[in-house]
């Protein structure tokens, strides 16, 4: 295992030097919600605005050329980061928009007689899971409502794994939408196996990779999915930029969600034709500086090494699970072992509501997330309204885990 030189890495993240709640050291354990940004990303965005700012794909002045080059270079970098071809990468605002783009393709095609692969009929089934983030759940409920398709889902086992009941994948299954890594449980799902089962019946596989792409090497070729969505802000990049990857043959047929400028081929008063992908899916002036920032984030992560980052996070996760299990009254929601498990550790405490636990942790300088983490049905599955979640990234260290454990003990004592 390659150990990260966290002390050196931390110097790249200016926010980690500030204190909170008076003079407490900031212990940032909420990277699952959004990550902090290194100078490399901040400077890339700043440089773009200072030197190259212009609208992309419009105009032929020098700045427009430079801006377009920077934006398309970002696409190439992100594509390389996930083992894809550049024209298979669509920039979106975030993963939520990327997933909606796929969902709307099905709704729109069904409503206006679009391509067969995107058309749903009553009786068709959309298969999701009980551990989905609302972003990969609510859009499919909407699609089912609009098209008459039926929504089904894989359940979750008591130890936080997917209950992969093979009977759920049938000839009726048209879409299988599943998260690569649960943002609550930390569970990493066997996408390749699910994709194999889905493809055997001709279904399309949509993967929410929000919590995997930032934390481990993901190659879309190996993954075996048809669509992959993720957000830049969770992988050291800026807010406002995300990505939808799709297989080229699917993108070629897929109808757009947003229409308007920059996504057309020809426009007449009564009809228009659309540009080929990825432009077809990027209506309006995009988030250019943010794409440039994401380019820098990918390079930064590559330079550190995704395998080393993943190993480091698994190490911290192991320490956190071990330490939390040693505290009486704490129960971890999610796998107890480190097999196929990422760096989100959610837990409940006897007699202390997560909101109160989070408040005491905040008072100790420890930033965690409390609530249902946009996975309300998953919490209902475990008969709890909310959890406290600590999530780790490359800039966290063993001291951070120790502070989490100390703060948790403090909370239990305070409310005892």
């Amino acid at each position, binding site marked *: 295992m390659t150990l990260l030189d966290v002390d050196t890495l931390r110097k790249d993240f200016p926010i980690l030097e500030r204190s909170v709640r008076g003079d407490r050291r900031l212990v940032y354990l909420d990277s699952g919600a959004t990550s902090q940004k290194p100078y490399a990303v901040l400077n890339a965005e700043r440089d773009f605005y200072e030197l190259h700012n212009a609208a992309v794909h419009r105009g032929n002045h020098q700045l427009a050329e430079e801006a377009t080059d920077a934006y398309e270079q970002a696409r190439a970098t992100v594509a390389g980061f996930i083992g894809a071809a550049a024209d298979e990468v669509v920039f979106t605002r975030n993963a939520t928009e990327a997933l909606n783009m796929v969902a709307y393709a099905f709704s729109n095609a069904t409503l206006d007689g679009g391509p067969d692969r995107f058309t749903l009929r009553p009786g068709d089934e959309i298969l999701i899971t009980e551990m989905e983030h609302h972003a990969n759940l609510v859009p499919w409920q909407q699609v089912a409502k609009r098209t008459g398709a039926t929504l089904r889902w894989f359940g979750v086992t008591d130890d936080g794994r997917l209950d992969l009941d093979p009977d759920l994948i049938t000839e009726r299954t048209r879409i299988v939408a599943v998260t690569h890594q649960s943002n609550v449980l930390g569970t990493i799902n066997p996408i390749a196996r699910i994709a194999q089962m889905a493809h055997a019946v001709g279904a399309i596989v949509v993967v929410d990779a929000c919590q995997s792409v930032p934390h481990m090497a993901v190659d879309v070729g190996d993954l075996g999915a048809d669509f992959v969505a993720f957000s830049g802000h969770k992988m050291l990049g800026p807010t406002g930029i995300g990505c939808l990857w799709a297989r080229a043959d699917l993108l070629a047929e897929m109808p757009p969600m947003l229409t308007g400028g920059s996504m057309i081929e020809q426009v007449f008063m009564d009809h228009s034709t659309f540009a080929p992908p990825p432009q077809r899916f990027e209506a309006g002036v995009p988030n250019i500086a943010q794409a440039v920032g994401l380019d820098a984030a990918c390079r930064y992560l590559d330079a550190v090494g995704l395998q080393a980052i993943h190993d480091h996070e698994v190490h911290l996760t192991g320490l956190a699970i071990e330490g939390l299990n040693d505290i009486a009254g704490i129960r971890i929601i999610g796998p107890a072992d480190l097999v196929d498990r990422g760096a989100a550790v959610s837990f409940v405490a006897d007699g202390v509501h997560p909101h*109160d636990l989070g408040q*005491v942790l905040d*008072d100790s300088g420890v930033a965690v997330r409390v*609530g249902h983490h946009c996975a309300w049905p998953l919490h209902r599955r475990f008969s709890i*309204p909310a959890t406290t979640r600590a999530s780790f990234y490359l800039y966290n260290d063993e001291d951070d885990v120790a502070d989490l454990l100390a703060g948790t003990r403090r909370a239990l004592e305070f409310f005892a």
Partner: protein
Amino acid sequence: MNMETLYQEIILDHYRNPRGKGLREPFGAQVHHVNPTCGDEITLRVQVDEGVIQDISYDATGCSISQAATSVMYEQLVGQPLDQVWPVVEEFVRLIEGRGKVEPNEDVLGDGIAFAGVASFPARVKCALLGWMAFKDATLQALGKDFT
């Protein structure tokens, strides 16, 4: 603003020993409110008779702040005539939403002033108001009016 200022002894006491908890009959209206950011829920019933709050009964899951705020509300409002209830509700909401800039009025709020610290923690404002908003909704429904 530190944690100890937020978690006044009165709040911890009401959290550990909630007053009036449990659903009872009779009631004029029942409502169910949720806090969508954290999943906390309350089912609350109000019985109004001859212009007086006869009972507030409730079943809730939530943090110490939301549980204690509902418990304090029960103590403050049950047995009070409506014309004295509304000023208390109004003053409590004003205090909690006051971002820490509203001077708490003990004459009106009684134990409710213990929640003054909540106003400095924006993430907890909805916790403190969950039960109070449910009460307002239920009471207006019991009186045949719309919740605004």
